[in-house]
């Protein structure tokens, strides 16, 4: 995570879980980035990531996706995985960040810690 902040990049995660669940999850997993709650799926629909009946007991959830957005608000990179088990890892996203030149150059490169 420090590698992301060294480049001035914020990380934010969104799901249909309400704020209380997000709080517990953040405490349990020690996550430092914000977890945003979208229980009515407004933003999930806006980004066309709704997975109808994809959750347990047939509820609608978001399909996993990662977006890299630059300061002007333009999407620079999208990762829509076909397999729900395969997600972009922290070092992978960092590589994309450096390749696309989003954010600042870090002053002293260190080994990237595992991003949550």
């Amino acid at each position: 995570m420090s590698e992301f902040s060294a480049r001035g990049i914020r990380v934010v995660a969104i799901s249909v879980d309400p704020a209380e669940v997000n709080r517990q999850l953040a405490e349990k997993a020690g996550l430092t980035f914000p977890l945003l709650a979208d229980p009515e799926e407004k933003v999930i629909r806006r980004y066309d990531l709704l997975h109808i009946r994809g959750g347990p007991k047939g509820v609608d959830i978001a399909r996993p996706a990662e977006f890299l957005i630059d300061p002007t608000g333009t999407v620079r990179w999208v990762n829509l995985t076909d397999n729900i088990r395969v997600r972009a890892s922290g070092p992978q996203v960092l590589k994309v960040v450096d390749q696309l030149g989003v954010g600042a150059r870090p002053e002293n490169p260190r080994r990237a810690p595992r991003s949550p």
Partner: protein
Amino acid sequence: MLTRRHRTFTKIRSLPHQIARHLAGGRIQPRTQSLASLCPCALLPKVAGSRRERGELLPLLGHTSLYAQPDSRATRKLTHYLIPHFALTSNVLWANLTLFAIPSFLLGARMKRNSGRPKFARGKSAGSTLAALTLLTVIFFGCLNLSFAQLPLSTGAPSAGQKAPDFTLPDRDGKPVSLSGLLKRKETGKPGGLVLIFYRGYW
């Protein structure tokens, strides 16, 4: 018929097996001190001789390894207390399937060998029962995983070069957070950027 090797092995007993023997009224054969004595198969009747006992362990290993799939939401709540997660490749069940294929092969070999001498093999069907159970579990979880695999196309999602739609959502403390607020330059003056992750939820 007890061989000399078997008599030597009977001197080595393990505590779980002693308990199991006591519970079963002494009807169980004494066993070698192998890994097999630690698992519930201690209650099953066993053939004298260590090689076959180790063969009994493999189907049980194959069966329990199925529960070691990380990321499988259906199994996680059920069995995460059974065994720790192994660091297998989380994408395909290669390791699990191999662990199942080996005992199936050994079982096939043993059943073929035992079919010629029914008196010897009486009551030794625990391995085949376990293998059948494993097969059923594999099929069941395979169907479950397939049903999770159909993801929507999401053609409307913003692609590279498009503007990300703005939004405002509450964070875990209830404070509203907006996309434009997140993208504003940080105080240190470094140009910002944002990694936006959508995840399934229902933790």
